[in-house]
């Protein structure tokens, strides 16, 4: 192993990447766009209003007319949780199909009410509960249990706080695997790998240079995404920043090794693209980036917990949101280290040089 050739190989990787302006742009700008979009979608705001549609009651039926009156009165209230729209009777199906209202209230002759909604939509179920309570109370129902609401919107327990560590982990996975797979397969395709294999270059050094060059960029990626998260989205980092960076680096090295393995045989960029997606897709779904991985059935949990992205997401989340120390994230570091060593060793054995 020669330090100089490892340095030159890493430098070559670094130069090739920085001289590809498009690649740099997407590596840094894409996650920012995603985080920005989510920040807008999940910004702090008044609780969602349910949109309820109602059709006019048959003329002269006083009991039925009451429904429209009660709903309008409720909507006019300053604390209203409802927005009410009047629609013609023949457009009920349309409204439900397009989702422009969560619930359609159809007054029945004699004062009864029919609710039409899709129970699979959470906002429709909520709208039904709110509307029903309103109507029942307006008709004089008394609630025997006195209740009081104490709402929380504490920093660190919002969805965006949950999501930013996941986004960071997903970005580390994506950029590590993609950049390596693309670069290696291109070099193989251009017979450059074969030329390098004809020199006394150490093959381990060649593979390590890819992992190392990933780490160089990672520093920048983490800084950009975390900076945005902390300053713009006000996401907390409760644990140690050094530990956070350490776990991110181990994660990047592990995904770099997975990237090497993915690209160890493929001869074309098209071939490796399919393989890369095949490897990453299950992790996008199962690793708890967008929602908690505990939603999956217990039978699946051993698999879910063994995925490297799950380990990285959980590790980063524990440090940022729960303030875990090194001991708390040791299991995650362990899982990632195993992936790093095993994938690197296998890649070195099966790597196709020509």
């Amino acid at each position, binding site marked *: 192993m*020669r330090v100089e050739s490892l*340095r030159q*190989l890493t*430098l070559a990787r670094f130069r090739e990447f920085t001289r590809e302006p498009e690649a740099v742009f997407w590596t840094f700008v894409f996650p920012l766009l995603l985080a920005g979009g989510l920040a807008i979608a999940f910004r702090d705001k008044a609780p969602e209003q349910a949109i309820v549609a109602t059709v006019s009651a048959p003329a002269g039926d006083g009991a039925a007319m009451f429904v429209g009156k009660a709903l309008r009165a409720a909507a006019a209230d300053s604390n209203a949780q409802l927005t009410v729209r009047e629609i013609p009777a023949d457009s009920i199906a349309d409204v439900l199909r397009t989702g422009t209202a969560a619930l359609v209230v159809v007054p029945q002759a004699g004062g009864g009410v029919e609710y039409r909604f899709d129970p699979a939509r959470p906002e429709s179920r909520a709208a039904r509960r709110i509307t029903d309570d309103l109507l029942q109370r307006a008709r004089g129902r008394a609630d025997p249990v006195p209740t009081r609401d104490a709402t929380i919107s504490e920093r660190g327990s919002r969805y965006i706080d949950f999501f930013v560590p996941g986004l960071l982990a997903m970005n580390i996975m994506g950029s590590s695997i993609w950049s390596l797979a693309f670069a290696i397969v291109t070099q193989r395709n251009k*017979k*450059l790998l074969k030329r390098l294999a*004809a*020199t*006394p*270059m150490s093959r381990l050094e060649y593979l390590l240079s890819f992992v190392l060059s990933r780490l160089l960029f990672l520093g920048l990626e983490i800084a950009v995404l975390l900076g945005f998260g902390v300053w713009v989205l006000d996401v907390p980092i409760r644990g140690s920043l050094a530990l956070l960076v350490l776990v991110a680096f181990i994660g990047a090295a592990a995904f770099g090794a997975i990237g090497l393995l993915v690209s160890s045989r493929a001869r074309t960029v098209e071939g490796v693209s399919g393989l890369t997606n095949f490897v990453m897709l299950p992790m996008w779904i199962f690793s708890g980036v967008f929602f908690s991985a505990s939603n999956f059935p217990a039978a699946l949990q051993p698999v879910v917990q063994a995925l490297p992205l799950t380990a990285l997401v959980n590790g980063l989340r524990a440090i940022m949101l729960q303030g875990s120390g090194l001991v708390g994230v040791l299991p995650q570091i362990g899982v990632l280290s195993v992936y790093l060593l095993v994938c690197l060793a296998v890649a070195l054995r099966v790597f196709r040089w020509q």
Partner: protein
Amino acid sequence: MTVAASTPLALEVIGLRKSYGDVVAVNGLDLRVPAGQCFGLLGPNGAGKTTTIEICEGLNTPDSGTVRVLGRTWDEQPTALRAQLGIQLQETQLAEKLTVEETLQLFRSFYVHGRTIDDVIDLVQLGEKRKARVGGLSGGQKQRLALACALVGDPQLLFLDEPTTGLDPQSRRQLWTLVEGLKAEGRTILLTTHYMDEAERLCDNIAIVDHGQVIALGTPRQLIASLGAEHVIRLSTGHDGDESRAVRHPVALTELLALPDVRGGRETETGYELRVGAVQQALPPLLALAESRGVQWSELSTHSATLEDVFVSMTGRQLRDG
């Protein structure tokens, strides 16, 4: 081939065989390359040259046969052996985003001992392009850079696989001058080419390869002398394959071969090609015969015999036919 028995061999190949499925690429090939020589492997595309050279370079493994490079086989310490070889492959595309200097720094870093970057840049005359990206170089400049990459380790033995294929005449001559310089420094060079003029100019010894075997071996002069003829006369009736055979070949080949001083020959697409001792002796009877038959030659040319003629007489095919 005249080699003193005491000259050490830089490369020795015995009974080399390699097949890809049903296709036999190399079929019992033998080579002995003495140290300090420029040795040419000559043959059409698909003759097995590249497979042979890649096995010698340790990039491919033979099905059977022995290869000794600088006295060693690839089973012993391959990394140490690679450090002594300079290799230029066919169709390597170096990283386009790196500069000439950066590319050479990278390759230099693989060798413990070697030449300085400045030294090799001067040698291949890329000083002006030192800071230029590889992607912006011309074909000839890229080939010179590839040669420079082969030289940074100061190799004893150089493998050059079709170094001038696809280059314009000026770039080819520039590369020839470079190779002659390397020869003068006492390095051993194994060169493959399908250009006859290249082999004649650069190589001390040549092996003509066809169908995975060496079919002729010797110095360029010996090979040409083996034709038994000094000159070649080409005759054309000016009619091509659209015309009937009798129009294209109005005289029987045997009649032409029976003429004085004609040593051999063959029919070509549009006429004949005859190997003769001396043009001034062979030509008058040839013209007299044609006149007596009322044959008009639309084209008649003569040239001194070349390696190309050697190849044609041995295989009945042109080298470029592949």
